[in-house]
Structures are given as C-alpha cells and as structure tokens.
C-alpha cells in the first residue's frame, strides 16, 4: 500500500516541472499535512480526554477539563471494580468468553464451508454459493424478533447459546475464506494428500487450515471485535445482571441518575470497555489494515 516514488517517475516530474509548479507542490503538501494532522487530532482527542479523565477524581472532572493527568487512576479503578451494582469483572469475563467462542466457531466453520465450496464439484454448488452471496448483505438484526420469540419458546432466554452458535453460519467470512483459498490453494495439493491416503477431514485439518492461517487470523480479529462490541441482540436476550456483557453494562449507566454519577468511575468504565481493544489494534494495526486486502495481494 505504501507508495514510493520510483526514480523514473521522479525524472518525469523534474523534466516537467518548472520552479512555479514546485512551489505549488510544496504549498499543496503543506495544506495536505495540515488537514491530515487535523483529522488525526479529531480521531485521537476523544480517547485522550477519556484517558485523562479516568485518572481524575469526580470533583476535579466537574471543575472543568484539563489536559494533564491526575493521580486518581488507582482509586477510580478500585471504585469501579468494587461497585456491587456494576459487575464489571464478571462482564469482562462474559464478554471474553462469548467473543472467543464466537471467533473460534466463525473461523473454523467458515473455513470448512469455504473448503467445501472451493474443493468439491457437487450438483447444487453454484446455486448454494449464489444463495449465500445473496443473503450475505442482509443484516441478521432483521430476524432478531423471530429468533427472540423462538428462544423464549425453547428456554434459551438469558443464555449465551443464541449469541454464540449462529456464528457457525457466517456467509461473509465464508466468502472471504473462499476468495483466499481460490487464490492460494492449488487443488493438486489435496489430490496429492489423497494419494498418500489422507481422509477428507484430515486433509482439511492438516493441509487446508495451515494454508488459511493468515486469513484465519484476520477473520478471528474481526469476528472477535464484532462480538465484543455487539449491543443490539444481547440487549434483547440477556436479562440477569450477572450475565451482562460490557456493552450492556455501558448502556446500563443510562438508566441511573446522572446527578449521582461518579464521573471518575464512569470514565474508568469506558476506558476498560474501549482501551484494551485499541491497544490490541495498535499492536496489530499493520496486520489488520493489510489483512483487508489480503485476498488481492496474493491473487
């Protein structure tokens, strides 16, 4: 993605540019940098304020904003985690559990489904694949009502099953995995394994999954983040406080009276909800942004 000027193109530029256009270029470049810095500040500022405020006391936050850090981080932390009305530690564990299960199921079964579409020539292959592409863009939230009433009928309210199990059927991930397989996986690899006497499932586990590793990593992250941030459906299905996930805890603050808010605690709660994922993103950012165009790079 990085654009590096090649010597050739530089020559063309020099041949062609008089001093005036060089001056223009510098002017343009300056404007572009100013806009970029402005946008970057807009993206960072909310999170900067968030982190600053989670280190300040309720009283000092109410006094007004300051750009300098306070020293109430520890105290806000312990206030948040000892509040019996906000089961924060429990919510983190719940969210971790649901997101991990969702991500694992999504990548495993999507790889399996993609492999089936990629490898085998069966009768309804094109039909089923087209069908999948068609439903891909239709949001699942639309069937929430039906899913909710079915869950109520079968005693699955307040359960994690309707939050986790649907991850097995994720058309989008299948599509991504199939694109990836189509571009990197030679059919002869499977044929060779068959000659060696490997069964189809063993071929999938020992050959296909390792080949898919980069795509699996990217999709694992995306489905983990998607599930971690998911709010609409969990808000309808989860009822008991101890089963709540982080977005539900955040939304739950709305119900309480804002005048009794300990702002330090609230900012700390949002920090816990947002920042760990941002740190993970910053560590993996190169990988995540590149992963987006993974299929094409290989193809």
């Amino acid at each position, binding site marked *: 993605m990085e654009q590096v000027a090649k010597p050739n193109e530089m020559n063309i530029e020099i041949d062609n540019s008089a001093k005036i256009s060089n001056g223009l270029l510098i002017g343009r*470049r300056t404007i572009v940098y100013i806009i970029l810095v402005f946008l970057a500040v807009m993206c960072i500022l909310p999170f900067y304020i968030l982190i600053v405020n989670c280190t300040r006391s309720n009283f000092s936050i109410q006094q007004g*904003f300051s750009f300098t850090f306070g020293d109430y981080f520890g105290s806000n932390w312990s206030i948040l985690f000892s509040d019996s009305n906000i089961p924060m530690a429990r919510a983190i564990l719940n969210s971790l559990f649901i997101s991990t299960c969702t991500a694992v199921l999504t990548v495993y079964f999507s790889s399996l489904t993609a492999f089936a579409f990629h490898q*085998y020539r069966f009768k309804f292959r094109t039909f089923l694949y087209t069908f999948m592409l068609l439903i891909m863009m239709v949001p699942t939230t639309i069937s929430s009502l039906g899913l909710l009433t079915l869950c109520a009928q079968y005693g699955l309210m307040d359960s994690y099953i309707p939050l986790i199990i649907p991850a097995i059927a994720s058309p989008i991930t299948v599509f991504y995995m199939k694109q990836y397989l189509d571009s990197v996986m030679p059919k002869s690899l499977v044929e060779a394994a068959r000659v060696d006497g490997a069964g189809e499932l063993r071929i999938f586990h020992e050959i296909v999954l390792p080949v898919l590793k980069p795509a699996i990593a990217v999709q694992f992250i995306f489905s983990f983040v998607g599930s971690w941030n998911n709010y609409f459906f969990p808000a309808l299905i989860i009822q008991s406080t101890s089963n709540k996930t982080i977005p539900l805890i955040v939304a739950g603050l709305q119900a309480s009276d804002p005048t009794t808010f300990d702002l330090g605690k609230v900012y700390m709660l949002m920090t816990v909800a947002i920042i760990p994922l941002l740190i993970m993103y910053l560590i993996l950012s190169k990988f995540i942004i590149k992963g987006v165009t993974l299929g094409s790079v290989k193809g």
Partner: protein
Amino acid sequence: MNKRMTINTRKKKMSYAKWGYILLVPFFVIFILFQLIPLLQTFKYSFYEYYSIGLQEIGPNWVGFANYVKIFQGSILKYAGNTLILWILCIIPQMTVSLLLAVWFTDIRLHLKGTWFFKTVIYMPNLVMAAAFGMLFQMLFAANGPVVDMLMDSGWITETFHIGQSVWGTRWVIALMNFLMWFGNTTILLMAGVMGIDTTVYEAATIDGSGAFKTFFHITMPLLMPIFIYVVITSLIGGVQLFDVAQIFTSGSGAVDGSSKTLMMYLYKLIGTSRNYGEAGAVSVVLFLLTATLSFIVFAFTQKSGKLSKKEKKIMKEIELKEASKNGTSC
C-alpha cells in the same frame, strides 16, 4: 482393462462430491435454525396481533395487513426520514474526505511521509465499541462536559448549552461520531480503487501538463465512479442499521420529539420495551425489503458487471469483503 479404470476414477470422483454436501451441513443447519426460521417467524408475526400489556399477553391473532397500516399511519416514515438525514449528514463529508485522502495517499508527486501513521490513526475509531463511543460523546458534550468547557474557555460561547435539547445539534454530533468511525475505513477502500487505476494514465496526464485538479476530475473520478457508487450503496445498507451510537447518545429517547430516532431504535423499542411483536414484525419486514433491495443492487453490480474491468471487479469484491467483515453498522 482401460474401461474399468475410467469407471473406477469416475466412481471415486462421485464419492468425493458427496463430501461437499457433508462439509456444508453445519453451515446450512445453523443458518436454517438461527436465521431462516427466525426470519420466517418474523414475517409471520407481522400479520398477527401480538403484544403484551403488563403480564398479559394478547394474541397472536391473525389481522392481515393491520400492523403495516398502523406503522405507516404512525411514525415509521418519520424515523425512516431521520435515518436518511443522519446518513446524509455523515456520508457527504465522509465521501469527500475519504476521496481526498485516498487521492493524496496514493499521489506519487505529493509523496507524503508518515502515511502509515495517519492510516493507522484514522482507522482506529472503527474498532471502538459503538455503545461506549456514544456514551463517551454524551459525556464529552454534556452541559458541564469538556467540549462546552473548552468552547467557553476559548470565548466562542458565553453560556453552557445542552446538546440533547437541540434537534440539529444532536443530529450533527451523531453524524460526527459515525464520520469518525467510518471515514478511515472508507479511505482504505477507496485507496484500493485509486491504486487499481492504471498508472500509465497518470503519467500521460502529467506529461501533458495536467494539474492536480484536472487529473482528479477528468481521470481519477470517472475511473473511480463504479467503485465510488458501490461504496455509497453498501454504506447505505449499513446506514439503515444505524443503532448503537444514536441509541446510547440520546439515551434511547432519540432526542427532542424523537428527531434523531432511527428505524433500528424504533424496532428495538417495539421488541424490547413495548413488546409489540406484531408491529415489530411489520417494521422488520419493511427493513428486510429495504436492505434486500439494496443488497440485490450490490449483488447485481458485482455479479454481471460486464462493463467493469476485471481489476475493478476484484477491487469491488475486496471492498465487499471489507464492508462485510465489519458486520456492524456503517454510515
């Protein structure tokens, strides 16, 4: 002998084909149980009177199209309008900024430094929990919050203000949140599009003395158009689903007179709070028809895009992936 061998291999091929079906079983079983049946159930309820008052449940009783009549006589068109307004407030600056950034990031003559840093930073808000982001902005824009504070300190305003009491104030802040969350994403998508344009075209234009503006309007934009439209439509599909930020930022109320209440917030209220499953079903069906139509346009666009070059098709698939892999709302 020879004949026998061909029969054998054919038999073997047949037996492999069955593995295709076997491996598809988990996907389709779960799809049918958790998506298709619920969807049909939703459709069904849209034709029934089915709601709760307190602990008493009424229905389901068949009422035909009564629920549809009710929602259309009610506020659904208003909420659809709100959703559209919020989407437009966001999509116009978003496409403009993303287009500019995509062109600048890929401009060889401009030769920007630190593009990786900027790309990382502008993509970052995309991964943030939308619910927490909405909550954060509610705190930032509170009457005694940091934004009002900063504006008062710098002398831009003299009195505190409640953003929640202003119709357009609330709408603009929701659009701003969506903008921040999605413009980085869109930039990366459009960059893929711009980079797909043959570089020799640019070289020729430079030699002919075409400036930055001319190059943009006469070369980049026309060649980028299919991808540009594609991104806008997929973003509209996301825009229809706008929920988390608006819901949390307005505490579920949708601000003054529900002026920032979206279709999804309406649906959420019908299912979760008022438990009116009949009307909720009708709203779901309307949403389904809306997104299905848009999806079908996208699908037709990518599938039989005979007019598009192979490269464009590939980029579009890529974009589709990207949009899709976020499976959340986009603006």
